[in-house]
């Protein structure tokens, strides 16, 4: 049955409206960064750019506002280690959750679900206290530890979903061949779940990269401060004086996320929807 043309037209018009609504703020952001200051503060804002300028990007990298390179380096290191540790815990415990029914399982599941709620302001004050007691204030270690509280619960959850769909026969065959349980996990199961593992790692990286609240309370200098806090501080100190430089820094800080997301989009969507529906 062919769709009538009118119906098709309406469908695509709705799609265009949705896409404009979703994307115009980003387009406006990018548009602004290539405008000269005069054009940016013109009495009537336009999308058309008379003369394209790269001055805002040069300013962003110049270190006049924030040490963008240093901040980016911190973010990359912290998020990379967070991704690795989360992947490790998620593959081991996710496998346990998927395959081993132990007494007290519903309690463990409850911990996992509650763990996703116990975030941010609810645990901030003790975390600051611990970090200061262990001399971890303003260290990358503290950030990695706290970022894992965001990423491990969801990581384990999604990973167990990926393990569940692997046929049980594969494990049984491995046991018959004499493989130990650990060998079965790392030699047989994990290679099968690589797409899931990659998705979790990159998702953890994204979550860490986007964090603002934890880095805000736990870091203070270039030793560990992340790019988000840097930009927020710039926003606070500059106010509306240098929108161009601020927005150019914003574009630079958002690009890694868009790239990573486009890589894992398919797996991530699968993992998230499967987890969500199971509740």
């Amino acid at each position, binding site marked *: 049955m062919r769709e009538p043309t009118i119906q098709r037209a309406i469908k695509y018009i709705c799609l265009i409206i*949705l896409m404009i609504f*979703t*994307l115009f703020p980003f387009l406006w952001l990018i548009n602004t960064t290539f405008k000269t200051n005069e054009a940016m503060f013109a009495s009537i*804002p336009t999308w058309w750019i008379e003369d394209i300028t790269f001055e805002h990007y040069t300013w962003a990298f110049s270190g006049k506002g924030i040490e963008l390179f240093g901040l980016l380096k911190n973010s990359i290191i912290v998020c990379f280690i967070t991704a690795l540790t989360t992947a490790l815990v998620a593959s081991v415990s996710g496998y346990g959750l998927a395959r081993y029914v132990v007494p007290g399982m519903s309690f463990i599941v409850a*911990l996992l679900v509650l763990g996703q709620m116990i975030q941010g302001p609810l645990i901030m004050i003790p975390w600051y*206290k611990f970090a200061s007691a262990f001399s971890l204030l303003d260290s990358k270690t503290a950030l990695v530890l706290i970022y894992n509280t965001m990423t491990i*619960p969801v990581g384990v959850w999604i990973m167990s979903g990926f393990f569940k769909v692997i046929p049980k026969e594969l494990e049984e065959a491995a046991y018959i061949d004499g493989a130990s349980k650990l060998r079965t996990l790392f030699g047989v199961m994990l290679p099968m779940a690589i797409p899931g593992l990659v998705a979790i790692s990159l998702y953890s990286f994204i979550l860490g990269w986007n964090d603002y609240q934890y880095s805000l309370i736990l870091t203070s200098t270039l030793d560990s401060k992340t790019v988000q806090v840097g930009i927020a501080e710039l926003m606070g100190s500059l106010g509306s004086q240098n929108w161009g430089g601020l927005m150019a820094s914003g574009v630079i800080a958002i690009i890694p996320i868009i790239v990573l997301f486009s890589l894992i989009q398919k797996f991530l969507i699968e993992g998230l929807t499967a987890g969500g529906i199971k509740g």
Partner: protein
Amino acid sequence: MVKTFLRKYGFGYALLAPVVIYLVAFQFYPLFETIRISFYDYSLISGNKMTFAGLDNYERLFNSDRNFWTIMFNSVIWVFGSTILQFMLAVPAALILSQKLRARGLWRGLMMVPWVSPVIIVGLIWKWIYDGHNGLLNHYLTDINLISENIIWLGDEFWVWPALLLTSAWKGFPYITLMLMAGLTGISKDMTEAAHIDGANAWKRFLHITIPLLKPIIYVTGIITIIATWTKFEMIWALTNGGPGFTTSILPTYVYTNAFVYFDFGYGSAVATLSMLFVLIFALIYAKMFGKDNG
């Protein structure tokens, strides 16, 4: 006895141990610590030692804090306003993106971009759009003659709320859309087609077939959204810092203000504890109201 138990379940526990230990050490223990500190007089500024204070912090919060009721009221508006608005955007978005479309995967991916973007950058973008002098929003609203004078969106006690809720809904709706789309693929074509033949129009089909079948997903996603909106203070902090004054302060931002602006950890912990109680109550009321037939 123990031996057979260990042989049977030991490996399973060993696998699950890392996540359980991590959760207990770094989330549950801090949570109890928050509750404990809330009963102490513990301010970094005063320089005094941490001393037990019983319910003093709570008494101060309920009886002598002039901002308290504003903040409670704001918290309710924020959580429900944002969640409802997110659904109002997500339902049509999910219906559109579930249609047969060219390059549908691409549109679905693009729709997710606000959701994966860092909240600080999102705040930055919208601050620029809401700007009182050069903002895009004022410009467009003037163009269509809806307003005659520029509005300082984030500096106005009334307009700051619609602005804040719109941004939060814009950032959050893709997740709900994603969940609803997953639910829509599960609804059989036969059912809607049968209804179509029976003469039910699109609106009726939507109301009587699609929505009831989506209810379990709406229920679960709603609770996830409420909690996610509640436990993060970042969006408000990025856009308004809780201001002007305390107009957009909610319990979570008030935790931050007290603990890390005034460095009163005891009082901040009391606000945090209350905040936790409230998210539990919200979740329970929600479950009672909508969870009856979804188990």
